[in-house]
């Protein structure tokens, strides 16, 4: 049984009080420029998944509390939650640096694009 704390309303509950929302930090590509989305990008959004063994970033919904979606960082081997953070946020810096593989590339890209703007 996972124990989860909602970062929005602060309530702590069992996994059955929450709803799993799968991979975090994916944005629908058609939202900004619907006419120019290659099918590969769309298929990537719909079906391709970051599926790491280890640190993972995901969405949960506080079903029986405030009803809001939020993010969580969790280890998929030990099941340990590393952080709960809001929907509009990225995970804490330390966790971003701890991430491996596709997640590490994703956060590096985010940091680069932030540095440019």
């Amino acid at each position, binding site marked *: 049984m996972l124990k989860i704390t909602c970062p929005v309303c602060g309530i702590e509950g069992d996994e059955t009080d929450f709803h799993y929302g799968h991979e975090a930090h994916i944005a629908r590509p058609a939202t900004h420029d619907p006419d120019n989305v290659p099918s590969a990008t769309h298929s990537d959004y*719909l*079906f391709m*998944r970051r*599926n790491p063994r280890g640190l993972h970033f995901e969405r949960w919904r506080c079903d029986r509390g405030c009803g809001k979606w939020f993010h969580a960082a969790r280890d998929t081997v030990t099941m340990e939650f590393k952080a709960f953070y809001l929907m509009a946020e990225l995970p804490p810096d330390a966790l971003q640096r701890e991430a491996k593989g596709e997640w590490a590339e994703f956060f590096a890209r985010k940091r680069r694009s932030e540095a440019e703007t």
Partner: protein
Amino acid sequence: MTRYSIFSIARNAMHYHKDWERVWRSPNPKPEYDAVIVGAGGHGLATAYYLAKEHKMTNIAVVEKGWLGGGNTGRNTTIIRSNYLQDASIAIYELSRGLYEGLSRELNYNVMFSPRGLLMLCQTEHELRALKRTSHANRLAGLDCRMITAQEAKRLVPLMNVEADCRYPVLGAYYQPRGGTARHDAVAWGYARGADALGVDIIQNCEVTGVRRNGQRIAGVETTKGFIRTRKVGVVAAGHTSVIMQMAGVRMPIESVCLQALVSEPIKPVIDCVIMANTVHGYISQSDKGELVIGGGADPYNNYSQRGSFPALQQTVTALVETFPFISRLKALRLWGGIVDMTGDRSPIISLTDVEGLYVNCGWGTGGFKSIPGSGFVFADTIANGRPHKIAEPFSLNRFAEGRLIDESVAAAVAH
């Protein structure tokens, strides 16, 4: 390889069964193979067996990070059926079920295939209609199946509650008489023994730590027992597919989640077929040892730990109690979990990739055991010839970009 027969048993009985030879070798890896299969589960071993037998590729290896058959092959509920909705699915699952019929003889190894009949209960009007549709689709494809009434189902399983006054009354059932079970370990062991006898090296305790590429071509695999040079790699790693494919730089449309099952304490024979109750999410059969084998839905979240959480199991068992009231008094004897690889359309992936020489067979999700022989057969053909087998073709990786989904997510079975 000693051929097993009544005479070999008699011969060995004279030496108090102390002289049976080892069933497969434990070789060290050679520096180079014609092909390397990653993962010695049922699918990987079947692939190796058919590569050697049908395509005469005997200079191949199967590398396995643990022991052979120790993953999902040894963790499923051993159900074999082929009653899927889409034509592409029926083709591969029925090929597989058909191969199971003759597998013990083919491998000279008793896999205890038992076509004891499979029932899918209809417990809502919608489910009755959906399964009628499935049965029509199956009969058009030539499958032996039919719809039966609740009373007929009751005759097959007298202990089942078919009263009309429950939350989910049994309104009828889909019946596939040649569905059933087999002994899961024996399937892995039989293929391993067969492949080994044909010269395939099965290398256990040998984890793949990297996939080496030469540009867009496969150059070999790094393992804990050193580098193995090869031009063809078949990844058959179920729940760990994403991890291996990441090493080769290929993204996969897969999420790994835990699927649990349990067995009860052994009791006298009460159920002699396989029963699936999809609306309430549970399936049940009885093993030869007398244990009731029970499975249900997968845990929702990504998981590589091979351990599930209690609520998913609890839900499965509570769901079955109304239809099978007697199970409420039984004790659970063992429970376990396996890491299954779920695709978006709940259909498998048997495919070439953008990397030349890299092949992948995964995405069997919660239904891998039933498909071991067919999957190995078409994947071996795909690897040997460098192009998809006709039955494997619809299951290619690019179906996700082309919008050619083979949607079994709502059509097929309980655990989706």
